[in-house]
């Protein structure tokens, strides 16, 4: 009997592995086919190589820029701005949420304003930010913060508010004050919600920073893209886009690792 179950289990595992490798190879195949097709289409002039560039020219440009060292500064600038915007938005948003939770009067007053601010296209405030903060890093970081701040506040506040009141009663019965309720129950109960806003914020802060760089900067990947547009170098535009995609993915997996760490606690 025991060996039969073991056998079945082995069989099950083998099947799982096979499916997993099939998925992976199909994904790889699609990627290779896409790059290959792009290259061929570009070389044979099926698509305009000036507009759509080609994988080989992007690769060449990447190599040149790494060798002459002009790429790293842009990557570092954009990455720093994004991380700053991301961290500030998350910390500030969670703080605002805590204030709303702590003082119900404030949350009732703020409610309609938050809804309006959330619905507003925040990117449109970019020019005002630049005038207010001056054309520089601070305006760009502010853009990254602004775009995700309100939604962070709303989501985290909602999660604070939805904490099971029975856990709160447990703490109150031990004489716990608001600070204890927050520390022992509300905050830990909301960690999953906070993590999921982190995931959303990764994407949003990249958008905010790139838009900010479009508007003012002299450095950064957003600047490189705008510069590429201006001199009609679409290889440069696509290269910047690719780098952004890769870095955003890395940041996203970073949040995923954090999530797993917290969950295993």
């Amino acid at each position: 009997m025991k060996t039969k179950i073991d056998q079945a289990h082995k069989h099950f595992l083998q099947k799982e592995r096979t499916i997993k490798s099939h998925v992976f190879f199909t994904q790889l195949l699609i990627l290779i086919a896409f790059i290959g097709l792009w290259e061929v289409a570009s070389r044979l002039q099926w698509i305009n190589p000036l507009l759509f560039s080609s994988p080989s020219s992007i690769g060449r440009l990447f190599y040149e820029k790494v060798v002459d060292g002009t790429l790293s500064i842009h990557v570092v600038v954009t990455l720093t701005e994004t991380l700053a915007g991301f961290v500030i938005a998350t910390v500030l948003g969670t703080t605002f949420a805590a204030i709303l939770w702590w003082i119900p009067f404030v949350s009732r007053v703020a409610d309609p304003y938050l809804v309006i601010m959330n619905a507003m296209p925040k990117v449109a405030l970019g020019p005002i930010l630049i005038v207010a903060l001056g054309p520089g890093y601070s305006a760009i970081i502010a853009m990254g913060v602004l775009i995700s701040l309100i939604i962070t506040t709303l989501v985290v506040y909602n999660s604070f508010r939805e904490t099971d009141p029975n856990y709160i009663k447990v703490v109150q019965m031990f004489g716990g004050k608001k600070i204890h309720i927050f520390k022992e129950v509300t905050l830990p109960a909301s960690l999953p919600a906070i993590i999921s806003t982190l995931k959303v914020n990764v994407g949003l802060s990249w958008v905010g920073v790139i838009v900010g760089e479009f508007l003012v900067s002299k450095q950064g990947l957003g600047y490189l893209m705008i510069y590429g547009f201006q001199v009609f170098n679409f290889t440069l535009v696509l290269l910047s886009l690719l780098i952004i995609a890769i870095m955003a993915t890395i940041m996203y997996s970073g949040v995923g690792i954090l999530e797993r760490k917290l969950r295993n606690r």
Partner: protein
Amino acid sequence: MPFLTVDHLTHAYFSTKSVTTALEDISLEIEEGEFVSFLGPSGCGKTTLLSLIAGLLQPTSGEITIDHQTIHRPHKRIGYMFQQDYLLPWKTIEENIYLGLKIRRTLNDFNRTLALGLLDQMNLKETQSKFPHELSGGMRQRVALVRTLATNPSLLLLDEPFSALDYQTKLKLENLVFKTLKEHKKTALLVTHDIGEAVAMSDRVLVFSANPGRIKSIYTIPEHLQRMKPFDVRHHKDYNEIFQSIWEELNQLEDKD
């Protein structure tokens, strides 16, 4: 001198649309070490009364005192056990039973040892570093009891603490809780829907009527049954008679609704 007094207590819930009178003119006195159960139809205000005594709610009128002190907020000497365990899922069992001590800033080696000793009494020593979701319902409710007892309250409020458990676990826990409370000379108020449980565990049973909640009648359990373990009471020849009369009274109350 009564330990707990409830004096002409009335409580109403307000909303913008309605007023619900949950309790009207409740007066009662509980002696130290007594075990008293509340029985009554659903919605007659049993949980409301416990929450008021717990200091989680403020009465609309009337007064509650414990040891001559009026209750305005949760009191140090009162512990509350809910229908479900409400162990914090992100804390280990050990951290959970220290919760009250931590909040009260009395988490020292002495109290730690006491709490762990209680856990051992409940046969849960080896679950110490596990998380609540790794335990069965009965085990979790026992941990909740340890958590409540760890701060050494004199009065325990128990709001249907066994109702979410299967019958066998429930009977075992009744015995265990009864024994533990008697050993530590605790006073207890138990809300239950189970007439048998009320008779088996209590010294007195208060029957409530609904709309608004009032004390309908009081049954004093004969002394020889008071001293027996709940499980043995359920098998005693005098048990059925008391059960019957409470049963009939409750039936009348529910027919009236």
